[in-house]
């Protein structure tokens, strides 16, 4: 097996969230076009440990472990595709007149995210599927003359159930070749 090296983003796709591992097979993905460069950021919030040391001792008597906040994923979109917008907002879209009416009711969009990374090493890239992310949105570069308006998606990563073990999981990462062929890593 080649060593793992991952970096870059080839594309990002979105679909309605699913809550079991099997849902990945039937998800209908829509590509998020024109992702703002260097905005894709996955943050793994660190866990903490707190030691309790008695006055007359030099070692911890007990240690408290506190899990970190849920992981977050952030990325910016420079293109406002109607299908993607419909996933993120409560809106009414009329294709015949290209008219979008944004409704007052706010929305936390529950979506699945599929990120395909760039092939960085050994002709392999990684497909990262995060089935359950709750996205909120904000706007950067609001109608500036010299910048594109960026729709910033900020997502909190939730969990789904694995198929065989019925455990809580957060993401599925698969190594594929540059041409998306499956890699068999059983032989060294």
């Amino acid at each position, binding site marked *: 097996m080649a060593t793992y090296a991952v970096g870059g*983003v*080839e*594309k990002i796709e979105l679909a309605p969230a699913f809550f079991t591992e099997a849902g990945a097979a039937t998800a209908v993905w829509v590509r998020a076009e*024109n992702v*703002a*460069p260097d905005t894709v950021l996955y943050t793994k919030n660190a866990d903490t440990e707190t030691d309790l040391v008695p006055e007359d001792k030099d070692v911890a008597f007990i240690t408290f472990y506190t899990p970190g906040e849920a992981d977050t994923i952030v990325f910016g979109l*420079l293109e406002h595709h109607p299908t993607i917008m419909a996933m993120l907002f409560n809106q009414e879209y009329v294709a015949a007149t290209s008219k979008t009416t944004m409704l007052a009711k706010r929305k936390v969009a529950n979506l699945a995210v599929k990120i395909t990374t760039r092939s960085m090493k050994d002709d392999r890239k990684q497909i990262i599927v995060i089935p359950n992310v709750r996205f909120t949105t904000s706007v950067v570069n609001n109608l500036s003359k*010299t*910048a*594109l308006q960026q729709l910033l998606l900020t997502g909190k990563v939730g969990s789904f159930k694995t198929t065989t073990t019925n455990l809580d999981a957060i993401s599925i990462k698969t190594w594929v070749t540059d041409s998306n062929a499956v890699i068999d890593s059983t032989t060294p």
Partner: protein
Amino acid sequence: MKDAFDVTIDVRGLLNVPAITTLLSTGGSIYQTERPSGRGAFTDIVINCLGITNEPLQKGSGNVNCYVPAITSGAAKVANQPAMMTLSRAVIALIDMQFKTTFQTWIEDTPIIMQDTDGSYFVNIPFEYQSVQNNFKNI
């Protein structure tokens, strides 16, 4: 993706109209990047590009230099300021705050009169240029 050639081609397209060509007089031309030597007696426009980025919103800049033959004042050759003013103001009107289908231009700084190495006087008009890429892949 737009490159430096596209910048000068697009800006030349804005200027290659009767409002400008009628001011160039006989033999005057609009050149991209470089003015041929030995043209001190002609009214010319030279458009150059100083560079353009490769980002989703490409940003570039350049100059429009308006050459006008010098006039004689006493024994000295001096810049023909009235003709330069007329030509440069006509150029600015066509470049400043232009929002076209595939690109935008605007004037960055107000023009100044400069002298070229061959003694020709010209008005230097710096402009800014930007364009949205249709198929940007670098994420």
